């Protein structure tokens, strides 16, 4: 039976980890490759790297990070941040990522999804959507609106409509990130996740709000997500991958166990 996936994301700026992330080995502090290796060894199922490098001059550094991760970490990983063209996507795939992760650029120019899907296959294209809860309206019937720029810019697009559109254009997976839940550590946005998961026929990854293993259980069952993204729970050393998976397995969910 297919396992529920636990995925983590690492924000990278100028080749270094952007958040304060706890390290087991102090000499590795800030190194995304070392962190990826540590999570891989703990049994994480997949990784996402977001390049938040401000200057385009430093984008090459990210490609170097991607290729070093690919040499040492043998699980799938995607790369997002600053991908605007098929050529941008091609570069990170050549460097060793399995998938590209597109977000704002796809909202501004939806054809990016179709172009990348045609060039590399739907399995290589992950559409991330940032979503804010708003009052329901004719334009936003689900009351969930697509936003960009970290939640600052509302786009007047209904999240469910956008999920459909993304699937139709050729996305292979959707990351549903609740701006409301993000950073609260009070649990994922279950209603939003369930609405999207029921609307599309591609896997849905829940993001934003995970603070304890119970939250993952809720979003993987009630929220109908196929996978859950975790950040601070792992990054601050509050839990290991094994502890999270151990809890989910105890509750009867299928998760991948790693024997070494």
């Amino acid at each position, binding site marked *: *039976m*297919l*396992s529920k*996936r636990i995925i983590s994301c690492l924000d990278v700026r100028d080749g270094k980890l952007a958040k304060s992330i706890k390290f087991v080995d102090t000499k590795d502090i800030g190194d995304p490759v070392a962190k990826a290796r540590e999570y*891989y060894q703990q*049994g994480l*199922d997949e990784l996402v790297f977001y390049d938040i490098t401000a200057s385009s001059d430093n984008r090459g550094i990210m490609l170097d990070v991607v290729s070093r991760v*690919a*040499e*040492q970490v*043998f*699980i*799938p990983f995607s790369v997002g941040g600053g991908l605007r063209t098929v050529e941008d996507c091609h570069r990170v795939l*050549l460097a*060793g990522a*399995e998938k590209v992760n597109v977000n704002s650029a796809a909202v501004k120019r939806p054809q990016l999804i179709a172009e990348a899907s045609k060039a*590399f*296959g*739907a*399995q*290589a294209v992950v559409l991330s959507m940032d979503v804010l809860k708003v009052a329901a309206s004719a334009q936003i019937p689900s009351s969930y609106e697509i936003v960009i720029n970290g939640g600052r810019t509302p786009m007047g697009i209904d999240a469910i409509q956008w999920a459909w559109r993304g699937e139709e254009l050729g996305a*292979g*997976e959707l990351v549903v990130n609740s701006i409301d839940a993000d950073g609260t550590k009070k649990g994922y946005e279950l209603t939003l996740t369930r609405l999207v*998961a*029921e609307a599309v*026929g*591609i*896997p849905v990854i829940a993001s934003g709000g995970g603070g304890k293993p119970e939250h993952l259980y809720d979003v993987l069952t009630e929220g*109908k997500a*196929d*996978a859950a993204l975790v950040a601070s729970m792992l990054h601050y050393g509050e839990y290991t991958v094994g502890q999270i998976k151990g809890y989910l397995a105890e509750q009867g969910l*299928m998760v*991948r*166990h*790693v*024997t*070494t």
Partner: protein
Amino acid sequence: MITLVDYNAGNLTSVRRALNHLGIPCQITADPEAVRRADKVIFPGVGAAGAAMSVLRQRGLDAALKESFAKGAPILGICIGCQIILGHSEENDAECLGLLPGKTIRFSASFSAPGSALPLKIPHMGWNEVTVTQPHPMLAHVNPGDAFYFVHSYYPQPADVSQVYAISEYGGTFPVAIGRDNLFAVQFHTEKSGPVGLRVLENFYRW
């Protein structure tokens, strides 16, 4: 030396990186002569069966693979490489290599996931448990409960069930490791399946 067949099919460099990590020597080639001469061949791939077959034919690699198989060189197919060794694929209605009798079939969207009213999501993407149904040196040290990473919408169905070595379950059971003689093929991405996946590549090196 393991020869990786280059036919514009995606995960070639991932397989090479995994072999490098294991210290197993390998070369990537699109030259049919090099494939004919190879001691061992890995035939990886991501993509569509029809496109994969047409590139193989254009480069003369289809004949080279058949000769390599006939002369007894161990061959490992991965993902698309596990599908186009069969006679035919439903994907693009493609005529394939026919090294192993059988065909490649699409998952049925009418199946539903166990315990759920939702239809099965296609592609089958993620980590799934692999159950060994017949021992094979390529599956040595693959234990009950071990999961591998999959991304596919079609699966291989050999005509002769005795050529199935492992299965998984997704709306029903389906073959995930098949083989005959010096040919073995896996539907999962063993190069992206963590430590147990690397073990299968080591098994191939020793096979």
